[in-house]
C-alpha cells in the first residue's frame, strides 16, 4: 500500500473527521475437475474521508491516493455533511471519544509462494481427490486470499495501522446416488497468509479423508423428519447462530431499527448455561480469527459481553449509537473497502464453552439430530432465523445413526436459547464467510456444541 503520512492533513479537518487510506488485495484460484478456471489477483485501494456535522454525516472517496485527492475527499466529505446539516437543521451532539494508537501487522514472516507454487499446490489437492476418492464425480477447489491493509487518523487523535490477512480454501465434492448429484463442501483456513496456513498439501489430507467419508454417508443418507426436534448443534452451527440470530439483533443500529432485543435488556433471554461474547481480538488466551484492536472510527476495541449467564447485558456500538444510548463505544465500527463508511459490524462472536462432554450430550438424546455444518444463514429483527444444514446425522437412542441430506433449521433465537440444556466444554472458531449488511465483511464465529430443541425442515 502507498505509504502516506495522514497526520499532515489533520489541519484540514473543520468538523469531526476520519481520514482513511486502505488497500484490499484479493487472490483467487479455482480448479474444477483438473482445470484452472480462475487465476486472478485484484487490488483495490484509495482514500476516503467521513465528517460529522450537526448530527449528519458526509463521506467521499477516491481511488487515487495523492496529496491532491486526499485534500479533495476531505473537502467533498465536509461539503456533503454540510449539505445535509444545512437542510436538516438539527441541534447536533458530540460524539464520544476513546482514542488511541495502534499498529498490528499479521503478514507472514515466511518466504512468499509464487503464483506457480500456489497453483501447483491446488493441482496437487485436486489430483489427490481424483486419485483417492473413487466415488467423487465432480470436484471444485477455490482458494481465496484477502489482505486488508488500513491506515486511519481521526480528528479526536487516533492513529491506526492494521494488516489483517485471511486465507480460505473451499472444497466441494460431489457424488451420485440413484442418478442424482449429492454435494458436500467444506472451508479450510482462517487468519493468516497462505504460507502460514498451507505450507504443504499434506496438512489437509486427514481432513479431506473425513470430508469424503461424510459425503459418502450423506449420499446414502435420508431426509430428516420435519418438526421440532431435540438436536445437538455442533460448533459451526452454534457459531452461525451466535452471529446471525443473536449478534445482529444486538447491533445497536438494528436495535434502533426495532430489533426485539431492544426490549430485553437485563432480562433472561437464554438458558443460564449461555454466555455469548463478541470478542475484539483475543478469546480464551488465543488470537481471534478477525482481530480488531481499534475500529475504523479510531475507537479502542473492547469485548462486548452480549449475554451473560442467560441475561442480555449489552449491545454493540459505534460512536453515534453509543451517544444515542448513552453507552460506551465498543469498537464495532468497520468498513470493508476504502469507499465504504464504517458501520456497526460483529468481529468474533461466540458462545463460551460449558462443562458437558459432546459424547455425553449425544448419548442423552433419544430421538433427534446431530447437526454439524451450515451452508448459509439469515435472521431478522425478531431473532427468527434460518440456517441451511449440509452435514448431520440422526441420533437414535443416544447413538449416531444415518447421515441426513441437506435441510434447513429455523426458530426464534431468544426462544430457542432458553431450551439449551447442555453446552460442551470445547470450542472451535470458523472464519469461512462474509457477513452481509450493506457491505460484506469477514467475521469470526465460534462456539462449543449446544443441546437444544429446534425446528428442522424435511421433504
Amino acid at each position, binding site marked *: 500500500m502507498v505509504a502516506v503520512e495522514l497526520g499532515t492533513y489533520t489541519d484540514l479537518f473543520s468538523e469531526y473527521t476520519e481520514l482513511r487510506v486502505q488497500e484490499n488485495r484479493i487472490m483467487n484460484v479455482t480448479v474444477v475437475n483438473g482445470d484452472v478456471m480462475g487465476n486472478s489477483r485484484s487490488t483495490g*485501494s484509495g482514500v476516503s474521508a467521513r465528517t460529522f456535522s450537526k448530527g449528519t454525516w458526509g463521506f467521499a472517496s477516491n481511488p487515487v491516493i495523492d496529496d491532491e485527492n486526499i485534500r479533495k475527499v476531505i473537502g467533498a466529505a465536509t461539503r*456533503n455533511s454540510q449539505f*445535509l446539516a444545512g*437542510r436538516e437543521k438539527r441541534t447536533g451532539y458530540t460524539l464520544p471519544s476513546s482514542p488511541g494508537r495502534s499498529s498490528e501487522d499479521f503478514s507472514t514472516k515466511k518466504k512468499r509462494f509464487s503464483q506457480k507454487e500456489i497453483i501447483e499446490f491446488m493441482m496437487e489437492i485436486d489430483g489427490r481427490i481424483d486419485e483417492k476418492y473413487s466415488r467423487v464425480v465432480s470436484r471444485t477447489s477455490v482458494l481465496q486470499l484477502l489482505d486488508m491493509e488500513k491506515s486511519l487518523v481521526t480528528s479526536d487523535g487516533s492513529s491506526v495501522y492494521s494488516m489483517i490477512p485471511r486465507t480460505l480454501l473451499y472444497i466441494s465434492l460431489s457424488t451420485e446416488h440413484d442418478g442424482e448429484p449429492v454435494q458436500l463442501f467444506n472451508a479450510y483456513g482462517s487468519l493468516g497468509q497462505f504460507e502460514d496456513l498451507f505450507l504443504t498439501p499434506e496438512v489437509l489430507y486427514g481432513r479431506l479423508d473425513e470430508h469424503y467419508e461424510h459425503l459418502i454417508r450423506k449420499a446414502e443418507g435420508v431426509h430428516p423428519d420435519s418438526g421440532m426436534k431435540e438436536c445437538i448443534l455442533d460448533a459451526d452451527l452454534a457459531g452461525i447462530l451466535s452471529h446471525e440470530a443473536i449478534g445482529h439483533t444486538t447491533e445497536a443500529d438494528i436495535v*434502533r431499527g426495532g430489533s426485539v432485543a431492544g426490549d430485553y435488556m437485563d432480562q433472561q433471554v437464554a438458558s443460564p448455561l449461555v454466555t455469548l461474547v463478541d470478542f475484539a481480538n483475543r478469546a480464551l488466551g488465543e488470537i481471534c480469527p478477525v482481530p480488531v484492536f481499534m475500529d475504523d472510527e479510531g475507537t479502542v476495541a473492547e469485548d462486548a459481553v452480549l449475554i451473560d449467564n442467560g441475561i442480555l447485558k449489552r449491545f454493540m456500538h459505534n460512536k453515534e449509537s453509543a451517544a444515542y444510548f448513552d453507552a460506551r463505544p465498543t469498537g464495532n465500527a468497520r468498513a470493508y473497502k476504502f469507499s465504504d463508511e464504517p458501520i456497526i459490524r460483529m468481529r468474533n462472536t461466540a458462545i463460551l464453552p460449558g462443562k458437558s462432554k459432546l459424547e455425553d450430550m449425544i448419548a442423552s438424546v433419544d430421538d433427534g439430530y446431530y447437526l454439524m455444518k451450515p451452508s448459509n444463514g439469515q435472521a431478522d429483527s425478531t431473532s427468527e432465523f434460518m440456517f441451511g444444514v449440509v452435514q448431520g446425522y440422526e441420533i437414535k437412542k443416544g447413538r449416531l445413526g444415518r447421515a441426513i441430506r441437506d435441510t434447513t433449521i429455523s426458530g426464534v433465537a431468544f426462544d430457542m436459547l432458553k431450551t439449551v440444556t447442555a453446552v460442551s466444554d470445547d470450542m472451535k472458531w470458523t472464519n469461512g464467510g462474509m457477513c452481509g449488511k450493506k457491505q460484506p465483511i469477514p467475521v469470526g464465529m465460534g462456539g462449543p456444541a449446544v443441546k437444544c430443541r429446534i425446528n428442522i425442515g424435511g421433504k
Partner: protein
Amino acid sequence: MKDRKDITEYCVEALQKAGLQKSECFLHDTRKDELNVDSGEISLLRTTDDTSLILNGILDNKKGTISINKIDRQSIDDAVKKVLDLAESSEADSANDISPMQPPAVFEKGAQAPDLDLMYTRMKDFLKYSSEHYPSLILEQAILDFTNINKYYRNSNGADLQSRRSSYSFVPMFTSKEGTEISSFNYATFSTTELDRNLHECGTIDILMKQSTEQVRSREFQDKFDGDIIITPDCLGTFIYMIAMYLSDYPMIKGTSIFKDSLGSEIADPQLTLHSRPLSDELAEGYFITGDGFTAENSTIISKGVLNSFILSLYGANKTGRTRAVNRGNAYVVDPGAHTVDEMTGSVERGILLCRFSGGRPSENGDFSGVAKNSYYIENGEIKYPVKEIMISGNLKNLLGNIKRISRERVNFGDTILPWIQVGDTAIFGK
C-alpha cells in the same frame, strides 16, 4: 493518459507486446451519490468515485487476470507483467478465449448526473408519508442512490465497445412494532432512470409497508400439509435466480446441473415464459456489454415451458460444447398469465401467499427448504392472517412443473418485471 479509449488501447498493446497471444481489457468508471436514512432520519450523504481496470491475457491457452483500480502508466505496466506471470503459472485450457471482432458500438442510457436536491426532497417526502400512514413502521434504513457507470471494452481481436448508463435505485428496509410485538424485517427494491414520482408509489413499496404493519400480529400454526403457494413478484426473483444458477457455467461445466440434458425439453408448465432482457427500454437496469466482451442481446430462456437457452459464457460454451448465451442473464422478465391475483387467491383451498423466502442454498439435485417470511395463510380462497415460523420445502424441477396459474398483473421493479405465480403440491409445515 486521460482518454479512456487511449488507455484500453495501450493496455491491449502492452499485453500483446509482453507476449500474451490473446488479450482483453475492461475499464469501468463508477460514480455513486448515495443518500442514507438510518433509524428514520436522514443520516449520510456519500459520494464515491472508483475505477476498475481488468486485464485478461492468454498464453498458450493459459489465462491470467489482474484487476486494479489505478490507470496511471506505471500501474498498468506493473499489472501487465503480473498478467503474464499468472498466465505462465497456470495450466493450459483450450476453452480460454476472447470475443471475436465485432462492429464498434457505443451505448448510452440515463442522466449524466444526479439531481441531489430532488433526491433529498423525494426522501423527505417518503419519510413524511411513512410516518403519517404507517406510524408503527420503523425505517431501519433507506438508501437512495444514483449510480453512473462508464464502461470500455477492447481486445486483441479488434473488439471495441463502450457504454454509459445510469439509474437511481431505492431500497427501504423496515420493521413494524406495536408495544413489544414486532413484525419480521422486510425490504423493497426499485430502480428507475427518472425520479418522476413519489418513492412509496414505486414497485411494491407501499404494499410491503402496509403488510409490515399487519405482520405485527403474525401467527404460527402447528400443522403440516401439501398445499399451494402463491409466490409474489417480490419473492419470485429469489426462485428465478436459483433456477438461473443451474443453467449457468459452473453446474453445467461440472455436469451436475439438474437441467443439463433438458435443452429443447419441457422443464416447466407451458404457462411459463422467462426472458432475459438487458437491453429492454422497460427496465432501468440492464447492460449493453457482457462480462465476456460481447454486445448483449435480449433472449428467451424458457419459452412456454420449454428450455430455450442455457446461460453460458464464452468459456462455459467452449467447455461444454454448447452454444454461448447472447447475454449473461439477469434483467428477467416473465410473461403475464391469464388470471387475476384475486382469482388465484380464490382458487386456493389451503396454502401460503409467499412474500419472502429465507432459505438454505438449494441442493445440487434442486431440493430447497426455508422459512416463509412476511407471508400469509390462505384457506378456502381467502387470505386469513400473516404467519410466522412456517417452513416450506420442495424441489425446483417439481416447482416449475407444478405451476398452476400465472397472474395478468405484473410489477416492474426496474431490474425485473415479474407476476404472481401459483404453485401446487408444496410441503408447508409449522412448528
